[in-house]
């Protein structure tokens, strides 16, 4: 029995429940009456710089309406957000890896490899030049673990409400909501680096 959401998702102007949520991403988020004030996303410093310097300052981010699901009441939305999708957990994992100099941390390795692949892929699509691709690849190869330290993006919902996409259930780690903003730009979010540089 699919989980019945306690609120509706507005899709194409009509309210629908979680039972009839289409597989493709809805372009309007879950909150119908009480949208969140903020969306949270944890990203690495290196990914942020690459997107800032080479991809036109346009950021593709996965985000959550809550920073730390574990701090919420048992039945609250996002309270059971799994670690792989919880911004606070992701932050702590990355911070731990960086603090301990763990260059083989799976999350860091995964991002390193994915960014390398994307550099070649975007070059194949003529989105970036071969010079830019080479710079990205060379920097990734030479990067230190500190370059992958976590940054917390704090995104005012009102700024991006028209562009936030609810991730389809098939792509989410759980039934808890996760969102994608494909074109977040400077001025639409703030960065927090709680412990500063080390």
């Amino acid at each position, binding site marked *: 029995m699919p989980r019945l959401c306690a609120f509706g998702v507005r899709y194409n102007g009509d309210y629908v429940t979680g039972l009839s949520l289409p597989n493709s991403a809805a372009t309007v988020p879950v909150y119908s009456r009480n949208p969140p004030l903020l969306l949270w996303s944890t990203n690495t410093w290196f990914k942020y710089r690459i997107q800032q310097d080479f991809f036109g300052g346009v950021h*593709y981010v996965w985000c959550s309406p809550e920073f730390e699901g574990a701090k919420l009441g048992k039945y609250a939305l996002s309270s059971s957000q799994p670690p792989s999708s919880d911004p606070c957990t992701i932050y702590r994992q990355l911070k731990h890896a960086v603090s301990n100099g763990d260059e083989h941390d799976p999350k860091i390795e995964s991002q390193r490899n994915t960014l390398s692949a994307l550099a070649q892929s975007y070059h*194949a699509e003529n989105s970036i030049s071969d010079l830019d691709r080479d710079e990205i690849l*060379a920097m990734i190869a*030479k*990067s230190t673990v500190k370059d992958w330290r976590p940054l917390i993006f704090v995104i005012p919902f009102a700024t991006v409400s028209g562009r936030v996409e609810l991730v389809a259930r098939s792509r989410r780690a759980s039934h808890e909501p996760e969102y994608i903003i494909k074109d977040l730009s400077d001025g639409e979010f703030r960065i927090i680096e709680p412990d500063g540089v080390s």
Partner: protein
Amino acid sequence: MSIASLSRYDTETAANIVAAAMMQLAPDPDVGDKPTVVESYAHEAADLLAELKSSVQSSRAGQAHPDIAVGNILSRELGSLLMTDESRAEALNRAGQSGRLPPSLYKVVQPSAFRQRFARLGVKKDDVSLTINSPSEVEHLLTDDVVPEARETHSIFMRSFRPGRKGPPYWLLVLTQRLGIEQNVQSAWRVYDSEVNLASAERPSDVLRAFVDVYGVEICIDEQCGKYISSETADIDGFKVKIFQPHNMEVFASFAHSARSDGKKYLVGMAFCINMTKYAAMLSRKGA
């Protein structure tokens, strides 16, 4: 290329297959929608992944994180397909010159003239290196899209230091000139927020201006005079420098110039002149 099965393809195709295979390892890349190469080379990438996964199964790294082990093999292959050591060094130099290199990758060069001048002001070599390679803030003054002769090549790094019992906290402000992956240190200043009003400073250049406002003396370059002259606003045709230096005052003047194609000199970066007597007296009060 070290993966034999890729030898049947040209370099660019092989690189695309490798990239597609790497993207297949990441169910959601977290950095963008999946690009078209994933679809275009889906079969070749799947074959490549199957080949590599079977070969890493016996390795220790492969057992712990098989996808990561395969990803690393593919990443190394991509690098060797697309770049040589020379092209990699060139790419890093380009990134460094344009200010895109992560601070940790810059090579810090502290010329002897800098060390001689600033060591006696309590500026430690390791603190300078740490500020550049692990800054709290960094600002690269650059105009990447302007003709090469007009490019600015200065960087300003800042890092907070807390000496504890040895003195109050301060910002170390380090000014450098970029040359490829090298950051050549020009000067380094301790900025105490009890001495310099940083309330409206939003970036390192604002901090520098605020610092110069307190400790600077007037400098003139041609008809442009002031405590701080920026090449962004200066309209300088020649390059005659005047510094107003009273007796018993030691000064440190910082300016750089280059030549246009017509032979005329122009200001690069910023020009300022610090009253070192006043600055050193402040450091002495702070116990530096």
